[in-house]
Structures are given as C-alpha cells and as structure tokens.
C-alpha cells in the first residue's frame, strides 16, 4: 500500500491511457491501481483488470461507471444472455485481494450482489453516486471497516435487511441521503466510531444509538430532528477526542438552550431525570415535524 501510485502520463486516446496504466501496473507488479477521471464508463475499457488478482487497491473516482458494468467485463446485455442470469459473472468480486475499492463520483445506480463477498475488502467508497438502493445481502461483508455512502439516494426503505450486520464497521458515512428514520438494528454495529447522518431528512433517531459506546464522531446536523433519546447521554461525546455535530435541526427549546452552553451540558441534561420526564411527555405529545430543510431535487444524484 505504500508503493507509489502509477503515474498517468498525458497521452492521445483515453482508452489507451487506461490500458497503459494497467499494463504498467502489471509489469511492475503494482498492487495499487489509480484510474481517476479517465471518463471510463464500462469495464470493457479496462481489459485484463479482473485477472489482476494481486491488486489491493483500486481507485476509480470521477468516472462514469454504471452499475451493470461492474458485474462483467462484457456488456450487461451480453452477460444476461450468456449467463442466463444464473451464475454470478466474473467481475470485481474476482479481485480477492482487494482491500480498498474507491468508486466515488461515478454514475452507479445499483450494485452487484457479489460485492459483499469480497473477503479482504476493508474500505469501500461509493460516495457521490446515484444509488437508489443496495443489493440484497449487502451486509455480508466479512471485514469491512469503512463504508462511504455519502451523497446517494438511500433511505431506510431501500436498505437490505442485513445492512446493519457489518459488525467490523468502524466508520459509516451516510450524509446527503434521504433517511427519515434509522432502524434500531444499528445497535449491532458495536465497533462503530464514526457515524455521519448529515443532511438527511431524519425525523427521529433510535435510542439504540446510545448503545454504540465506541462512537467518537456523530454528525446529525441539517436534519428535521426535534428531540434526542435520553440514551444519547451515555455516549462519550464530551471529550476532546469526540465530535458531536447537531446544528441545523429544530431542537425543542431545552435542548437548544443546553446546546448553546456546550456539548457536555447537553449530555448532562439528556442524562437528567428532568429530561427523562419531558422526553416521555414528548413521546405522547410529539413536537411538530419540521419540513425538509433542503430542496433535494437539485441533487446531482437524482439524475436518471
């Protein structure tokens, strides 16, 4: 991983440039491949990539890759016919040594099912795509540690059932999505240290987040939240090593007041008997749900 990235010499055609990068990497046995901003839209443009089994990092940021081409080096149409939808075609999942896969800023709308079977994948960056959902069984990653889903079109309804079963996850970035609620299953992510839910449409947060004792970074700014479960007071968010961002919500007055005093004041208040009582009152007599604060129609991820 500490080897120098392959240089991208300026060349005539983009196709041959990408090819050259791969060939050079093969020649010097470079396990880290960078193909950034090459206008790549299909894996056909990257012949032999799926046979480079030694690679540990593959960065394909700022391209135009669509989901269907992730599965196979051939076009999806051809793949459908030849495989008759039965077997998982050879694709990215072939790269069994891959530890870091970066597909940030592409045109992905769907993901192949086989992705979650990659045995060594630790970091998966799918930020700035057009994902409207995640495939069934997506939560089966054996050792995934960092999952970046920033700026997509995800919400609690299009998440697969086992999404929160990735116990090894230590950072989950889901900012700029469309969540209104977070499933209570999130408590399974025992190792989570970073949780970003910035600028979703969150109306309520589950009390189970209070069980994520390792959490050191929690971003919930820019949502439609009004109250917090008292269990949040258990989180170690007041230390100098912790970050708790919760601006841009329509907090009820007592929370807003404590927030002005500081995070530690807010946490103490959440833990207090006073808040526990007012929280039960809020449960029966809910504060009005604020309107969405961002007009998401302008989001690039919505382009279809």
């Amino acid at each position, binding site marked *: 991983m500490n080897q120098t990235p392959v240089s991208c010499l300026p060349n005539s055609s983009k196709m041959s440039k990408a090819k050259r990068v791969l060939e050079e990497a093969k020649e010097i046995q470079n396990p880290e491949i960078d193909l950034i901003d090459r206008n790549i839209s299909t894996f056909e443009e990257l012949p032999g990539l799926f046979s480079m089994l030694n690679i540990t990092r593959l960065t394909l940021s700022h391209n135009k890759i669509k989901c269907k081409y992730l599965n196979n080096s051939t076009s999806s149409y051809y793949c459908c016919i030849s495989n008759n939808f039965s077997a998982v075609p050879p694709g990215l999942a072939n790269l069994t040594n891959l530890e870091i896969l970066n597909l940030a800023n592409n045109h992905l709308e769907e993901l192949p099912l086989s992705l979650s079977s990659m045995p060594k994948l630790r970091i998966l960056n799918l930020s700035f795509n057009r994902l409207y959902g995640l495939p069934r069984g997506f939560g089966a990653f054996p050792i995934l540690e*960092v999952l970046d889903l*920033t*700026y997509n079109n995800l919400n609690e309804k299009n998440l697969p059932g086992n999404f929160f079963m990735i116990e090894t996850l230590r950072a989950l970035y889901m900012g700029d999505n469309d969540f209104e609620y977070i499933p209570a299953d999130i408590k399974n992510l025992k190792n989570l240290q970073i949780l970003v839910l910035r600028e979703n449409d969150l109306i309520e947060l589950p009390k189970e987040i209070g069980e994520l004792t390792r959490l050191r970074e929690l971003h919930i700014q820019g949502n439609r939240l009004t109250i917090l479960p008292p269990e949040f007071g258990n989180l170690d968010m007041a230390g100098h090593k912790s970050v708790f961002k919760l601006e841009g919500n329509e907090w009820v007055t007592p929370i807003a007041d404590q927030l002005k005093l500081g995070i530690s004041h807010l946490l103490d208040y959440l833990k207090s008997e006073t808040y526990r009582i007012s929280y039960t009152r809020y449960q029966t007599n809910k504060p009005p749900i604020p309107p969405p604060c961002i007009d998401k129609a302008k989001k690039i991820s919505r382009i279809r």
Partner: protein
Amino acid sequence: MFRNMFKSQLPQDRSPDIPDLKPLECSVLYKRRAESREHLTEEIGDYDDLSEFSDQTFEVANYQYVCPTPDVVNQTLERKTSIVKVKAEWSNQRLNGAMSFDKMICSRCSEGFEPHEKIVNSNGELWHQQCFVCAQCFRPFKDGVFYEFENRKYCEHDFHVLFAPCCGKCGEFVIGRVIKAMNANWHPECFRCEMCTSELADSGFIRNAGRALCHECNAKVKAVGLGKYVCHKCHGIIDDQPLKFRGEVYHPYHFNCTACGVELDSNAREVRSRPGFAANDMNELYCLRCHDKMGIPICGACRRPIEERVVTALGKHWHVEHFVCAKCEKPFFGHRHYEKKGLAYCETHYHQLFGNLCFVCNQVIAGDVFTALNKAWCVHHFACSICDQKMNQKTKFYECDLKPVCKKCYEKLPTELRRRLRRQHEATPKKYPPPTVA
C-alpha cells in the same frame, strides 16, 4: 481353660501326677504368641498407666480434647500387678534340725517327703521336685526361673502367653514398660503422636478427635481450626499478625531488629542478605524504620521490597512482573511502554485508548503521525478521501464530514453541496460561546 482345669484338680489330686494334656505346641494361642518369643526378656518391669485425665475437658468448636497435666500423665497411678521373680534354691541336702523332717509337707500336694527325696525350697516353702512345676504346662522351670502371679507359679513362656499385654499398634507383647492409654496398651516406642510421630510416653498427650496428639500438634490443629498460625518458636497461637521469617511464622515479639535491636512487630521486614540466593537461612529481620533506611527499593505496585531486578519508570521502582500495562495488566518485560497521565500502557492499548491508530490501515502508527480532523494517519496513508491520492503537510485540503478532500476533488463536488458545505463552515463557530449569566 488350663487354669480352670488345674484349679479343680488341685485339691483332690494330692499326688502331683501330670494330666495328659496335648502338647503346648498345638495351642493356637501359643503359636501366635510364640512368633514373638525373641522379644521376651527376663525383665518384667513397671506398668505405666497413662490414663486420660478428663477433668479439664472442654469444647472448642468441633474439638473435644482432654488436657491432662503432665505430672498426672507421667505418674504411675496404680501398680496393677506384683510380680516376683524368684531364683529358686535347690536344696539337695537334708534340712537341718531346725525344721523337723516329718512336719515338712509339700506346698502343693501337702504330702510329706521321703527321707532321701530331693526337696525344693523356695522362700521358705517346700516342694516335691515333681510338684515344683509350672501351673500351666506342669513342666519344671527352666533354670529354676519362675514367675508368680496370684500365688501360682508359671514358667517364663506361659507367663508371657497368659498375662503379658499386647501392644495396640504392633500387636506384640509388651514386656517392660507398658503404656496404658487410649483404651489400649502400648510399647513406649509404639505410642506416638498421630501427626508428627514423636513418642508420647514421657511428654504426655492430648486426645483430639479420637487421635492421640502431642502438645505441639494439638496446638497446630487447634490453630488451623481457628484460622490462625502457631508460632514456630513458642508453639502458641498467634492472635495478631504473624511475622514470617525464613519460611516459618512467629510471634513478632520473639525477634529484635538486626540493626537497632528494637522488639519487632508485624511490620518488620525480612531482608535477604544474599540477594539472588534461593536459600533463606541467611535472611535477617529489620524494623520498618531501619528497613527503609537501608535503601531497598519498594515496588510501586505491591509496596514490597524489590530484591531482584528493579524496573525504574514513572518515577517509581517496580518488580519486573509488576510493571504492567494499565489497560491489559500484562507485564512489559522490557518491551516498550507508553506513558500517559502517570500510567504506563502497552503499545496496542496506548494507541487504542489515545487514538494513534491510522484511519486507513487501523494499525498502530509506527513512524510520524499525521493528525487532522480528529483522526490520525500514517505518513503514507494520508490521502484524499475521494481520489486516494497521497497528500503531505503542505497539501491544501478541504474538509467534508471530517474527511480530507483535495482541492481537485473538492472542485468536482456538486455545486449545491459545495455551497452548503461553505455555508456550514462559515456558520460553525470555532468555539461555543461562553455561558452567559442570565
């Protein structure tokens, strides 16, 4: 049985004819006892009775024990038997005129004597030669030695068979000193403490739960029952803190400080005068004051002196095995440790607790550390979060969700997002304003 027969015969049969008995060798009793014949000695001595003295019986927890005073135990309480060992005189000559011949009668058959008959004279009593025989086997006494019991005379062998007591331990006859104790008879050398096997005949014993114990063992058993130690010197129970010295426990007041001579208390310290040697017979005792003056380092964990390898860290001394990670409590054993707020940590836990794990590889950062955005990176893992291109301390980067984004990538982000990020960045105060007094 023999005796009964003999008794009934004695008055009628005046002539000392010998009944037709089976040879002695056929007797089972004889056979059993004959096996130990070599132990038989001519000396038949005292019978000691170490009967238990139960006046001072008292109960302590589960123990019923009898505490005799030694003089009573050792005292011969009763002389049970009187045994006369006689060497009979054989009178082969006619007795002189002092005793008239026709008045002389045999002590056994009451018949007179023939004029030329051999007469046996023993202690003034006279017998026909054929009447002067063992009351049991009717045979003459070997070498003229007989034993008398209840006015009857027995040869040595039959006397042992009939009257010598059997030892409760070895089952042999007890000849000589007999110890009567614990409802049995014993050889003095067979009656021993059941714990330490020391002889009890002269020291006395204490009955403890059906066992005969010496005073020391009894005290020990008693002390263990009470959860206390017994002083190795005075054998008394140690009620306060014991002092350990050369592997034994003592009352501290039996000792004085090697340096200043003050009487010791339980705070005294045993000092190994030959460090590194396993034997403790050179150890010495010092009072706490003198011990502290000797400059022996004290372990910061267990507060005990360190006599072997000393680890000096965090301004304190430690036993090698007591200098441990504050988190996992495993000793460092010379491995590198990390200090934080007066505590020492192993490499793994220091980084786990204090955050110097690389965000990308999640490993302890060995070399230089990049610290930014509440995270840390190895030098070669500090890269743009979107394009994975390496950055250095001079690279300008933007922040998005506390991830570094290089300038190139930031410019490729959706315009509306950039606008929001900029607005958020401007709105976020560097510090929360101090609380205002209402």
